[in-house]
């Protein structure tokens, strides 16, 4: 399975021809990933290559495993006792499940934004400064101030909060909270940003703000976004992967998935017949 996009289906599923980038050029490379929650087989032989400076969307019906797979990429599944992960996931060619890899270091490199905005019950400043502080990224207070400002600017929320950095982060509106969480995630200077349905708790205006932001973030990061909304996947992503019942069914350029799906299940899903 040199070609990462090729699917290792359990049955006679047709292997979808992909115009995939070469394995060497990809940021994240996953091979034959399986995840079990106890006896439940949540991810089945998924192999995928994710490119740098691209937005990759994971779509699929509820319970299809897209969030589970996302959480494998920064080893958040480690925190669930019953979860077992097998297979090979490499970031920049390095096996992130190797024994000598500390998840703490991995998570500094792979930031994550969650479904529900979850700022710490601390000030806006402390929310953003927390990551750099624990990793010792700032040498001085001025350094830290600069990181905080840069991160908040990058998350397109600086103008709204610059006058009240000491106000609690939990006092912001939902959309602002989510952008604060994005600022918090980018403050540790990650290379990859994982977003688990970042807009599902937001109203349409906040959603469009976050979507614009995702588009800008693509310049610096490899963004992987899980979304329920196919319109959102179509709007923000360059590559889309469709998951179904733990299988990666189809992975291709976004326009192709939405206009010319190769698999019947993908077609059924995007036309609303399953989901």
């Amino acid at each position, binding site marked *: 399975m040199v070609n990462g996009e090729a699917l290792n289906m359990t049955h006679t599923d047709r292997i979808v021809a992909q115009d995939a980038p070469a394995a060497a050029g990809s940021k994240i490379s996953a091979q034959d990933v399986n995840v079990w929650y106890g006896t439940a087989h949540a991810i089945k032989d998924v192999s995928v290559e994710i490119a740098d400076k691209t937005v990759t969307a994971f779509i699929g019906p509820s319970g299809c495993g897209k969030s589970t797979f996302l959480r494998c990429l920064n080893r958040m599944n480690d*925190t669930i006792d019953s979860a077992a992960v097998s297979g090979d996931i490499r970031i920049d060619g390095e096996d992130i499940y190797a024994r000598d890899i500390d998840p703490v270091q991995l998570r500094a490199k792979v930031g994550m934004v*969650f479904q529900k905005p*979850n700022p710490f019950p601390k000030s806006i400043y402390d929310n953003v400064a927390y*990551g750099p502080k*624990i990793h010792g990224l700032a040498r001085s207070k001025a350094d830290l101030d600069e990181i905080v400002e840069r991160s908040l600017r990058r998350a397109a929320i600086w103008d709204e909060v610059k006058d009240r950095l000491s106000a609690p982060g939990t006092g912001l509106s939902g959309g602002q909270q989510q952008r604060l*969480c994005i600022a*918090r*995630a980018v403050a540790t200077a990650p290379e990859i940003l994982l977003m688990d349905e970042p807009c599902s708790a937001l109203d349409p205006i906040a959603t469009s703000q976050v979507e614009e932001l995702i588009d800008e973030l693509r310049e610096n990061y490899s963004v992987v976004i899980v979304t329920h909304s196919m319109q959102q996947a179509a709007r923000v992503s360059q590559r889309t992967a469709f998951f179904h019942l733990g299988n990666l069914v189809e992975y291709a350029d976004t326009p192709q998935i939405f206009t010319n799906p190769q698999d019947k299940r993908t077609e059924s899903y995007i036309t609303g017949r399953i989901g």
Partner: protein
Amino acid sequence: MNDTAADIVRQSLGRRRRKQTMLKAFGLGAILFAFLMLGILVASLVSSGYKAFTQTVITLEVLVDPEEIRADRLPRGGFDDVLAATLVSRIPQVDPEDRAQMKALEGLLSDGAQFQLRDLVVDDPALIGQVVEITVPLSDPYDQLAKGLIDPLTPEVNRRVKDDEIGYFRTLEEQGLIRQALNTWLLTNADSRFPELAGLKGALIGSAWALLICFAISFPLGIGAAIYLEEFAPRNRVSDFIEVNINNLAAVPSVVFGLLALAVFIGWFGLPRSAPLVGGMTLALMTMPTIIIATRAALKAVPPSIREAALGVGASKHQVVFGHVLPLAMPGILTGTIIGLAQALGETAPLLLIGMNAFITSAPDTPLDSATALPTQIFIWADSPERGFVSRTSAAILVLLTFLITMNAIAIFLRSRFERKW
């Protein structure tokens, strides 16, 4: 049968409303019943205890007779004779040569009166030969008489104060020497054989030491155990077994902990009996399960999203726990701790077994000195035959309840003060 759904719903409304009203009435009734019982308890304690908050005292002008008390022989001297002489001068019907009458007269003042005078003179020997005004407590029977607890119509043989003694008392009362004063001795004296001198100082300090030690042991250990079980321990049979046993430990009768402490702390370790140190360690054994359970519940209540957020930016497990989870759980932990300590404050049985019910007339200076605690002091006084201890027992219970209410109020205050919203 052409009832529409709306009709069917309407028909059931009455029944549903009745049920709801009944539920409300039941809840309200339960609360009222609880308050009624609490009211009866407090009312009965106050009605029998309020008299212990005052003490009958007599103010005398005493000539410190240089014949009886000599500067070179302090602190020895006939202070009781000096006081008796003063009383004789006030009560004309007493014949100083009549031994029986003089003995009865000496029983009028508290035994502590002569020591009070002695301390005054020892502090300032210049008082010898002068007239000193001194306020001393009356002894318990006269205190009871003054408070109307002794009925003069009872046949004399059945009465603790005889007719001529009542006469002495009335004579002094007519001279305006006797009055009711606030009983500060109740808080500033340690225990005594004489009810009028008995106080709670020893018990208060003993309880304070025991609680401090209990807190110092059970708080860090309890939180540590809870953090390990909740955040680090794998979920398996061993942790299930530990969990069941901690819950069992919280339900073990306290007297069992007392026996354990007697065998281990006093028997093996050779720690002193009756010491607040041992009391505190024993109470810590009992408080720890409460703290562990409260802490685990508080840790569980911290939303998982906060843990994920911290893990997501690369915090290590201990940074997540100490930086985020523990601060958010603190109000719940503190509430549980204070409730556990309040339980410990009221605990009697284990302290009886380690000897904290001894008769000790001085307050402890260190946690290794013998002492009593508030509940054991109540136990001792409730067991004492002197009438004066009846009201003092109630008063001591009121003091204990005051402390409990204060601690619970602090718990509520901390909870509302530090509770955070997210």
